[in-house]
């Protein structure tokens, strides 16, 4: 018997990766499976210092519901998280702390700079404010706005998902990636 009211009947399922299927088994590209799993279970670490953090609270809450993207579990330990979400003005004195948090995260790790301040210093073109967090750590996605709406943060998050999905398993071992880390003085 069908239920009188249907809830959430527009659920979108992730596509099955290409592969060779038969009775009780499936053979596919390992990289694709890992990417699929990583992409849909990103644990974000919110690093919220000001008003963009308030927008993130709305993004996390039931109305915008970040959990729809597999990020139900917002972690507050850098050691367990995959995505560092930097939201708000980062003062120069905060720079080394942000870098330490980044270094404590395990590979693979991604960074999203939410808002004008995290991306470029924003309106705080002054001696005490870091002019964009990419001066101390590498950034994968920048979300513009002052502050950005939750939709914009979700859009940035989906861009991170695309990056995670497209990333090969060997990227973090490449010389290019090691050079990038060295240029930031990490390792």
């Amino acid at each position: 018997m069908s239920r009188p009211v249907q809830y959430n009947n527009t659920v979108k399922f992730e596509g099955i990766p290409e592969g060779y299927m038969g009775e009780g088994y499936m053979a596919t590209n390992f990289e694709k499976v890992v990417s699929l799993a990583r992409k849909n279970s990103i644990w974000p670490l919110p690093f919220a210092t000001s008003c963009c953090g308030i927008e993130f609270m709305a993004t996390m809450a039931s109305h915008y519901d970040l959990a729809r993207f597999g990020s139900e579990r917002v972690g507050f330990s850098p050691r367990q998280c995959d995505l560092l979400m930097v939201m708000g003005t980062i003062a120069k004195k905060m720079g080394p702390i942000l870098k330490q948090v980044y270094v404590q995260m395990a590979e693979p790790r991604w960074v999203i700079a939410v808002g004008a301040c995290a991306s470029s210093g924003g309106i705080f073109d002054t001696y005490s404010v870091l002019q964009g967090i990419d001066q101390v750590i590498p950034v994968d996605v920048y979300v513009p706005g002052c502050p950005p709406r939750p939709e914009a943060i979700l859009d940035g998050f989906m861009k991170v998902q695309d990056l995670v999905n497209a990333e090969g398993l060997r990227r973090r071992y490449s010389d290019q990636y090691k050079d990038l880390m060295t240029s930031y003085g990490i390792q």
Partner: protein
Amino acid sequence: MYNTLTKLKELKAPLGVGVMTNDTIQQKLTEKFGDALTDWQEPYGMLTFTGPKDLNLKVLQFLFDDAELKFRFLTDLQAVHYPDNKGAELAVVYHLHNLTDNVRIRFKVFTDINTPDVFSASALYQSANWMERETYDFYGVNFKGHPNLIRVLNVDEMDYFPMRKEFPLEDQTRIDKDDEMFGR
């Protein structure tokens, strides 16, 4: 009607404390220090005066110890940079508060920016400790006798004093913001 206010008045009367006015404060200070204290003003009713920087601790100690003045709370301490005031570019300003009579005064000393040495008031007022560190941090005033004169708000690596007028507000390390695009 015998209310709290009349009670207070009765309590206060036997002590023989006259109402402390700016005139009486100025009179007491002039009796003690003579012509050393100058530039008496009363902007918005707040007594303001200037003294030589060598006398700053003596004046503060007198204001603290005197049985009637009792300025025993240092509300605020900061510096001001006057680049055109040659030989006395930096002003150090003390805001003092008499909590008993609720009277506030302002005391300034001026110093040459090339030798910004001023005696530290941190032994007299505990609150001066961090405020002098902050003043050093932003203006480079060298408070002699301060127990721990290091930067408190800015990054330790900073090699200049950002609130001095010769330094622009904008971050000079930035290369992507040029005048053409950002009107700097």
